[in-house]
């Protein structure tokens, strides 16, 4: 269907409909910003942005509305992975290519979407685990018994599933690591703190806290301090976190957090690249990972932070 794409509308702009999840976190806001600053009229695009308020129903409605508005491309950052068969088929019937961002879609027919751009959550989890192995080795604690607790994200979210699985893969290889408990902190600071308080009372000797996003890590740090313990590179408890938002750098600089594994939200330029290729009629890779790094306190964090956009 791509060859038959009609020349763009009278104003010659490429119309892109973007169905975003919501604005539930700083990460998401940075992600939205990345799209809004890439798909500008100056760059030859008209962006129709829709915010689903974290509801899949709303995204489905938005995609249907995009079809009626005759957009050239639909970009979706799905709220959830499942349940897209019907509406993607409608888009396909209308001849509009669909690009996924951030989360995958679980559909029976992969031809329903053109390609996917995003981070690799399992890899993030594994990176965190590998970092911990190195770190413990450096500290000479490789053979010590290490007690770990995990503050999980909202159960069912791709980030939660991927990070839990990735870190779990590494835990399995380390017989001296002991996963004491996993409980969801629903990706929020307040819940993270509440759950951590509970952990601290049930388990007196925790060595490592894995928080599946930065916000929960902040909450955990507060709870640890309130319990009269210390954390960070010079403390009793090692804090491992994900996302690496600006506040996480502050926390690492302050010496509270050990490491944060990046989850890159800047998908806009990457999607624009893909669209340009498609416009030229080229084929694109189905799965495209964005680059992600690991930041820890051994780096020159203030310098790194200055270069970052979110």
């Amino acid at each position: 269907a791509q060859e038959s794409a009609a020349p763009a509308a009278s104003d010659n702009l490429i119309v892109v409909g973007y169905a975003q999840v919501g604005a539930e976190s700083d990460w998401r806001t940075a992600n939205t910003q990345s799209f809004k600053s890439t798909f500008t009229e100056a760059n030859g695009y008209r962006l129709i942005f829709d915010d689903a308020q974290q509801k899949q129903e709303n995204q489905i409605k938005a995609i249907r509305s995009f079809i009626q508005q005759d957009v050239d491309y639909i970009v979706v950052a799905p709220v959830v992975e499942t349940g897209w068969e019907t509406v993607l088929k409608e888009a396909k019937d209308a001849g509009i290519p669909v690009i996924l961002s951030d989360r995958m879609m679980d559909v029976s027919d992969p031809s329903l979407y053109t390609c996917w751009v995003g981070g690799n959550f399992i890899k993030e989890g594994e990176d965190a685990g590998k970092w911990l192995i190195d770190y413990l080795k450096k500290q000479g604690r490789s053979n010590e018994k290490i007690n770990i607790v995990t503050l999980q994200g909202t159960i069912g979210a791709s980030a939660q599933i991927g990070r839990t699985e990735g870190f779990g893969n590494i835990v399995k290889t380390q017989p001296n690591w002991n996963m004491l408990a996993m409980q969801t902190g629903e990706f929020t600071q307040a819940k993270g703190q509440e759950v951590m308080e509970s952990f601290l009372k049930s388990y007196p000797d925790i060595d490592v806290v894995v928080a599946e996003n930065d916000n929960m890590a902040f909450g955990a740090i507060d709870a640890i301090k309130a319990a009269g313990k210390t954390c960070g590179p010079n403390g009793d408890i090692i804090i491992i976190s994900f996302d690496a938002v600006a506040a996480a750098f502050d926390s690492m600089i302050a010496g509270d957090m050990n490491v944060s594994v990046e989850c890159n939200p800047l998908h806009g330029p990457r999607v624009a690249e893909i669209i340009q290729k498609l416009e030229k009629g080229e084929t694109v890779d189905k799965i495209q990972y964005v680059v992600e790094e690991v930041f820890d306190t051994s780096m020159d964090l203030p310098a790194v932070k200055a270069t970052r956009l979110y």
Partner: protein
Amino acid sequence: MKLRRKKAFNETTFLLTITITLFFAMYIAGMIVFKNNGFARLQVFLNLFISNASLIVIAAGMTVVMITGGIDISVGSFVAMSCMMLAHMMERSGYGAIHSVLIVLLTGIVFGFVQGYLVSYLKIQPFIVTLAGMFFARGMTAIISQDMISIKNPMFLSWATHKIYLPFGGYTNRKGVLVIPYIYPTVIIALIALVVIWALLRYTKFGRRIYAIGGSETSALLMGLNVRRTRLFAYILDGFLCAIGGILFCLNTCSGFVEQAKGLEMEAIAGAVIGGTLLTGGVGNVFGSLFGVLIKGTIETFITFQGTLSSWWTRITIAALLAFFIILQSLLASSKLKKRR
């Protein structure tokens, strides 16, 4: 005796007229504002029904319990539970689509029965009972499975994706594809359910009793109506409609996961109230609720067509339009009432 009567008119009809008029006014306004973006296309109108089929049925159930003077805030969670049950049964437990659907319907009846029993026989406040119902259903969803389950059952998918084309209103889009207007079977089911409930409320003893107990429970009791049983049945009917709503919702989303259909109860309540149902009971009409839902849907369509709002402006705009509508309705109603005095 010669009686001077206050001007003959009926609040219900009046509110309904306001709602319907405002809906069309709003829709036409949309066609004018977004005339270059295809708002006037038939499919946009049909999408209102396609996307809101389940909400229409659920709002009808909500209307029934609201007429009794009750409320049901468990519907969103119940829908999530229905979807999860369907997904889990078909994908993990090997049930067929038909069996799964029947089991969900039965669950709806049982769920309605339990809530109804607590409300009518133990006289516990509906808000609290259904709040507990809400917690229960949401938690149960998580207990059934914490995963996201995609439904791939071929029969179910064929129901979900079976387009029913309309013989008119087609157009060719910019990709050169001929787009013919269509609806899904869900829309037809929803409309049938709506008509059935309307007839039930208007033409059966059960229906009239629902209005009676909403108007005055003591009076209904003293007039010799079985208040408790009527109320119990109202909740059972509501539970059944929620189950249908859940199935329609699942046909639209084809998946089950814990966070599904969050806040659906508020949408259903808003739909019913905009449609002229009173939370205090005794007054309401399922067609009003239909238009209430459509108005909400139209507001959302505006937002997508607008296409530049950030998340916060989306929320604020929806709320502002809602406020505008509610206040306008209240002003119209009260000025009319004043005249009557």
